[in-house]
């Protein structure tokens, strides 16, 4: 067989240990259940476990004689819309800074259990990301603030209302002098209205919006370039060539679902005749977007600006007209970068009007101004990028925040209301907020937790979760949607909207009234009718704004650039430090969310920690290795944190994500990781050079899953370049040669009825983990904690495998989601001594938990390592309120039981019931698995492989389709479409 040789020659690796193939790694692999997993050592010792066993058997003998009495508690007056046993679905919106995510929430007899994207909302389009999926767990966080606190003592809402009545009178008299509100950023008509009311009552008061992580640089850059701080919205599906400057637009930055969908749409192929877009990335840290790149240039974050300048000049030298280039000096790039920019510029020019350049939120304003100029030159404005004015928005302003601190210090502001933020944790270390807050006479804090800030404030008010409060929101393009509660506040919290209105009026108003009052002005026609329709849809149709026309001010851009001193090049003595919001915990607000804490980071695969990520060369220069604790010194501040070597990170540059190291997050999040905010300063909130690192003798153990469940070097991920694919369209299925597959026994026939199957398109998968968390939420998958993750006992049914390819310093990256492959000849079934795992007639490899006796033979015999074992009863000890987040349609597993992906068998059953009730067959696309539903890029397709017209069959017919380890003749039902990259031939030659 003729195989494309360079496809096979690629070396895939998951960790440095694997690349070195050292003894430690081999020993690790030989153990099916990694270290300690087969010993009963934790949390109880073997001996006292046996003692307890003896006692509980004795007790069980007596207790088992009586049937436990179980009660049924019906409603007194059953709400009309509730039918016990049938979930209801409501539309709502997750406000998230200036963004908002339209969602559909599933509710079982009044308690919400699952969040999905709303197809009608432009920023989710039916999909979701990890933060939305996991925010259901936040609702049931037992550590949420449960009381109004006054001076740390339990108080009441009426006491606070009484207090504010007095204050209101006082401030009404002096027009609000000395009063200030520190709000989070918002994008909501009702909130804007409440703010307006507040400022009308107290014209002298201050209103400051603050976010630790935001897009202020983008607005500042566009203000330079166009005179207005407009909001860019990208249409990546219209871009043939994309250049991302330090921008993780697919995963951790603004509008990532829409961007990922658009990008994947531009990359979807049906056959080798189709075309796909090309992504160039220049970045200093390794991001998910960098992993998707066709060309990734490893550059220090502080040097990215040089690339932008060089690109402007390169475009000009290729004939594009550019006033900015005329008025600025070109930069000298190292040769490799110059070649990259040259090829990129040619590609961009060739795709004028069909390309896009974008920069990340951490890049300075000048870069964003330049990016605007480049897009303008390339006529991309109005095509792949549109600009919107932000209406009803509270845009964060760090300068205002500094002024506020100043005013607090001088006593100009004596009363401060903090609405929803946690500035004592996330304000810059040198801002002095901790001192300022002590000087203020009265401080009021509204927050979901009694956090770092709450404990320093006079009043603390519990904040309602978005599923408990009324509100509204605008998407980035202006689309209006409502925030609709599904449950009364569990802990008596109130929303920021209600508090602002209370501050403004002096008397409380319910959120429902505030929101309705505003919408009466918006909705036309019969209000009751349109309001109900709005609540049903979640989104107001056709409410998106029109993109605004912008006019470039090239002279301003040039001026800003010329006024900037060149960035220092990092070296071993003066390293570069990068502050990036954690993709999972964001700015730290999700720190008490167990799902997000346990989720292995997409790139580093660290779970339950952050670390000082650095390249191998940097580590060698500093003489440190993984898990060594180092002392970071930056502008007179120190922080000790462990090292993790991250291939692909720029040299002499480190990354310490924000959001960790909290000390008042709650049971889950307190004391996890290291607080990068302690090094973050007002001047350098994003990155800076000048960091010093000194090794210490300490070692800190971390939980990293990159070597878990290795498939030992067999060609599991398959990829090729577009060119190779066109030469060898069948490269993927033909990659492994094997003799004709013959079964040892008579094979079962699966020709009748529904036969379920799945296809995962690796070309669309970005590795965003949305599927993993969606699966966790849908299937009641427990979290196990850091120690158990270290032991290799994480429970995710759908894991995200990450492979590095090639060079240790500048690897490519590829992702592969792996759940149970539902083999037709399942090896697990053949070794189960109690038939706890067997096949059903629809081709599913099913697991009867109650039969499982925990031999773990099945897991040993699974070639894909997708089976998960409950070493402990993880769910039993959870606080009762957390049980409310669980899906009542899925069994909760106990200790000693094996579990795994079931293709969401509960959803299959529901779909079949629904179809049968209507006397028809299940329609294609009617049953969606949780992972498929969440996937922002539509990479997962599930359906009936017996239906020749189903989407899944169409996908499986593609020539990129291959099965994992097909040579074992296990005949998996899940197959993959091989990944493709689309490198620029010009750059390929030179490298």
């Amino acid at each position, binding site marked *: 067989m003729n195989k494309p040789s360079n496809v096979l020659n690629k070396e895939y690796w998951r960790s440095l240990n694997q690349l070195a193939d050292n003894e430690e790694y081999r020993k690790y692999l030989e153990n099916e259940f990694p270290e300690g997993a087969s010993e009963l050592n934790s949390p109880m010792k073997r001996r006292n476990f046996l003692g307890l066993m003896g006692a509980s058997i004795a007790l069980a003998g007596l207790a088992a004689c009586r*049937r436990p009495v179980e009660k*049924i508690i*019906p409603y*007194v007056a*059953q709400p009309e819309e509730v039918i016990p046993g*049938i979930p209801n679905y409501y539309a709502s919106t997750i406000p998230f800074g200036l963004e908002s995510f339209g969602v559909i929430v599933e509710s079982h007899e009044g308690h919400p259990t699952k969040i999905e994207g709303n197809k009608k909302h432009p920023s989710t389009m039916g999909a979701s990301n990890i933060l939305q999926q996991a925010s259901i767990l936040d609702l049931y966080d037992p550590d949420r603030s449960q009381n109004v606190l006054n001076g740390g003592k339990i108080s009441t809402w009426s006491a606070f209302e009484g207090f504010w009545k007095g204050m209101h009178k006082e401030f009404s008299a002096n027009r609000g002098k000395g009063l200030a509100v520190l709000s989070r950023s918002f994008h909501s008509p009702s909130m804007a209205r409440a703010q307006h009311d507040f400022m009308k009552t107290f014209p002298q008061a201050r209103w400051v919006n603050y976010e630790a992580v935001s897009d202020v640089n983008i607005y500042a850059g566009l203000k330079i370039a166009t005179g207005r701080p407009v909001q860019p919205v990208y249409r990546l599906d219209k871009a043939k060539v994309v250049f991302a400057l330090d921008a993780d637009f697919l995963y951790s930055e603004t509008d990532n679902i829409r961007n990922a969908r658009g990008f994947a749409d531009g990359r979807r192929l049906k056959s080798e005749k189709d075309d796909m877009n090309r992504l160039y990335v220049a970045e200093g840290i390794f991001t998910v977007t960098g992993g998707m790149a066709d060309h990734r240039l490893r550059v220090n974050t502080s040097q990215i600006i040089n690339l932008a300048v060089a690109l402007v000049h390169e475009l000009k030298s290729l004939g594009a007209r550019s006033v900015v280039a005329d008025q600025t000096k070109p930069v000298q790039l190292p040769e490799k970068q110059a070649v990259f920019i040259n090829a990129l510029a040619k590609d961009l020019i060739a795709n004028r009007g069909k390309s896009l350049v974008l920069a990340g939120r951490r890049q300075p304003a000048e870069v964003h101004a330049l990016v605007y100029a480049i897009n303008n030159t390339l006529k991309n404005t109005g095509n792949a990028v549109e600009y919107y004015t932000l209406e009803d928005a509270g845009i964060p302003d760090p300068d205002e925040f500094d002024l506020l601190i100043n005013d607090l210090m001088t006593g100009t502001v004596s009363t401060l209301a903090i609405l929803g933020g946690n500035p004592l944790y996330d304000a810059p270390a040198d801002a002095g907020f901790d001192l300022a807050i002590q000087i203020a006479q009265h401080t009021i804090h509204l927050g979901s937790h009694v956090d770092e800030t709450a404990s320093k404030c006079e009043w603390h008010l519990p904040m309602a979760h978005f599923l408990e409060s009324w509100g509204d929101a605008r998407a980035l393009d202006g689309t209006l949607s409502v925030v609709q509660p599904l449950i009364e506040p569990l802990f008596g919290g109130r929303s920021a909207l209600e508090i602002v209105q209370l501050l403004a009026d002096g008397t409380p108003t319910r959120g429902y009234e505030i929101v309705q009052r505003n919408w009466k002005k918006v909705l036309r026609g019969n209000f009751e009718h349109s309001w109900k329709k709005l609540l049903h849809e979640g989104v107001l149709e056709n409410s998106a704004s029109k993109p605004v026309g912008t006019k470039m001010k090239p002279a301003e851009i040039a001026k800003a650039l010329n006024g900037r001193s060149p960035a220092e090049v990092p070296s071993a003595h003066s390293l570069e430090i990068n502050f990036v919001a954690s993709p999972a915990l964001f700015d730290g607000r999700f720190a008490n969310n167990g799902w997000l804490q346990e989720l292995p980071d997409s790139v580093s695969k660290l779970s339950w920690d952050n670390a000082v990520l650095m390249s191998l060369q940097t580590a060698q220069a500093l003489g440190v290795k993984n898990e060594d604790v180092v002392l970071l010194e930056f502008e007179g501040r120190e922080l000790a944190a462990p090292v993790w070597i991250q291939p692909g990170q720029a040299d002499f540059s480190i990354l310490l994500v924000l959001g960790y190291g909290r000390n008042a997050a709650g049971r889950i999040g307190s004391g996890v990781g290291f607080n990068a905010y302690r090094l973050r300063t007002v001047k350098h909130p994003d990155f800076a050079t000048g960091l010093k690192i000194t090794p210490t003798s300490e070692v800190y153990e971390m939980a990293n899953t990159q070597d878990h469940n290795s498939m030992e070097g067999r060609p599991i991920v398959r990829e090729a370049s577009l060119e190779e694919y066109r030469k060898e369209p069948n490269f993927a299925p033909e990659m492994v040669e094997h003799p004709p597959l013959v079964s040892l026994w008579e094979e079962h026939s699966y020709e009748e009825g529904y036969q379920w199957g799945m296809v995962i398109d690796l070309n669309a998968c970005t590795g965003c983990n949305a599927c993993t968390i969606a699966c966790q939420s849908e299937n009641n998958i427990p979290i196990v904690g850091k120690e158990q993750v270290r032991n290799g006992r994480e429970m995710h049914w759908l894991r995200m495998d990450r492979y590095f390819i090639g060079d240790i310093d500048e690897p490519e990256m590829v992702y592969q989601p792996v759940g149970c492959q539902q083999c037709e000849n399942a090896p697990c079934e053949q070794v189960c001594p109690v038939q706890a795992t067997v096949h059903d007639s629809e081709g599913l490899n099913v697991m009867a*938990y109650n039969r499982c006796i925990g031999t773990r033979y099945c897991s040993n015999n699974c070639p894909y390592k997708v089976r998960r074992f409950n070493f402990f009863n993880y769910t039993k000890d959870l606080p009762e309120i957390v049980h409310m987040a669980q899906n009542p349609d899925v069994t909760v597993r106990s200790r000693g039981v094996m579990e795994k992906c079931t293709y969401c068998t509960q959803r299959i*059953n529901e779909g079949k019931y629904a179809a049968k*009730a209507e006397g028809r067959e299940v329609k294609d696309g009617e049953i969606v698995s949780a992972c498929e539903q969440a996937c922002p890029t539509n990479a997962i397709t599930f359906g009936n492989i017996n239906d020749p017209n189903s989407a899944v069959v169409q996908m499986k017919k593609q020539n990129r389709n291959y099965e994992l380890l097909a040579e074992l003749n296990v005949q998996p039902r899940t197959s993959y479409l091989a990944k493709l990259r689309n490198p620029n031939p010009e750059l390929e030659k030179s490298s």
Partner: protein
Amino acid sequence: MAQIFPEWTNRLPVIIGAAVLMLLVGVVGFFWYYGSPKYTDVGYRPEQPIKYSHKLHAGDLGMDCRYCHSSVEQSPVANIPPTQTCMNCHTLVGLDKPTLDPVRQSWTSGVPIEWIRVHKLPDYAYFNHSAHLRAGVGCESCHGNVREMEEIMQVQPLSMSWCLDCHRNPDQHLRPPEDLTKMNWTPPENQAEFAGRVKKELNINPPVDCSGCHR
């Protein structure tokens, strides 16, 4: 030398063997019978907080099961009626009866009545009432002749093998829709023919796979 063991000890192994065997049979038999749902669950009749009589309501007064258990045809769950359903009639009927005090109390105070569950499947088994009714399985098949029960009790074992008996051969339990809530129903003579037809028409193929009930 005298023999240490008398002669009868020669039979000892046999006796011990027989005793052990009998003990074994006894133990197995004990659990076989007393441990099975047929013994442990059938006949379960806990005292309910209210002496509600199905015989009176469903039997003598002839109310349809679905008047109270209203979600049974739409939902996996056959709901226990809310207090409201009781009060539909009992604001007019039985005003002087002290046995109804808890109902009135629940209605005025808003505190639900805590009934004791009689028919209980394990948490890992997912039973769907609506699917069974759609197929034509009557209430009686699982719940017995409720119209004659003063207090509700369990009459079938509700064990997995009992479920499977019917799933493998449902013919004798399929009824026309109008007979679903009838009690003392006996299959007509042409039942086999009826079952055959209805199975085809309604696409009835009861699952016998694990995934049919366990998720």
